[in-house]
């Protein structure tokens, strides 16, 4: 098997295979390239994504 430099994870919403150029940080927010669900990195190693939580009342600028 050839070694690949990309990091992969599965979208919890639509199960699409997502690839990252560099390992995302814990808490990082990203979007699924297929279903555009908003996802949050729950674990770095192994990379695990969950649907990002709804906006909370005290969030903002």
């Amino acid at each position, binding site marked *: 098997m050839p070694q690949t430099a990309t990091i992969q994870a599965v979208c919890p919403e639509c199960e699409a295979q997502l690839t990252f150029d560099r390992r*995302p*940080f*814990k*808490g*990082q*927010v990203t979007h699924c390239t297929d279903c555009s669900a908003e996802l*949050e*990195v729950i674990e770095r190693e192994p990379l695990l994504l969950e649907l*990002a939580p709804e*906006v*909370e*009342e*005290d*969030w*903002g*600028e």
Partner: protein
Amino acid sequence: MHIAMTYTRLRTEERIMLDAFDALGILATPIDLREFVFDPRDRSSWSRYDAVLDRSLSLTNSMTSIRVFEHYGLPCYNNSSAIQTCSDKLLTTLALEHHRIPTPNTRIALTARSGLEAIEQIGYPSVIKPTVGSWGRLVARVNDRDAAEAILEHRETLGSVQQRVLYVQEHIEKPGRDLRVFVVGGQAIAAIARASEHWVTNTARGAQAIGIPVTDELASLAVRAVESVGAHIAAVDFLECPTRGLLVNEINHSMEFRNSIVTTGVNIAEHVARFVVEQVESGVSQAGATV
């Protein structure tokens, strides 16, 4: 030098911030605030940091963590007092009024009855806002007495006790946009206009950001506004009043800037990173570390 960049959600802004420190060759560690237990008597795991840059999306998490970091003696950007003032529209109004910085006419009232009187003093249309809130949430325009009575009754019945505090402002007939000036370390570095069909012009509500020149007037008012709340890094929002000119609407202590870098051509994150680094280099430290 080692900077702690605290966050609760690593958005585009936070990633751009980390890249900006990286480009300066400065070590900056992202700190997920949700993972920590803080002991007021033990700062040992935090003494490796020279400063804290607060990038928490949650106001509660910002306030809580920055108060602890200040107790540990770490310089924090922004400091807890600035965060508190900026996050509370009443405290912001009082700071602006104290420093005679132009801002919309405002009334505060504590009950439904005095609330109606407050709205009538302002006249119609008027704008009601929660004193703590962001992204345009629950900001309401009240066009007549019927609407005023309905809103007041709803708040009294459905809201919490804090929500009964009425903060009401004159509605400024702004030209379909508001203006935002980014201020870092006492310098106005960039400005945008946020344009929308809707009278609420938050980009979180779909308004479009366009870079505009930082005029002398915008710069000097913005810098004064940021000083009045004691912040170091902030975005000042202005409403353009057809009769009275620029009025400061609010000051944001943890500004979003991802849509502003391209349109202004100013690398806002780089300015923020440089400012924090310069502060550490110039030996600024929090007076009175107690641990």
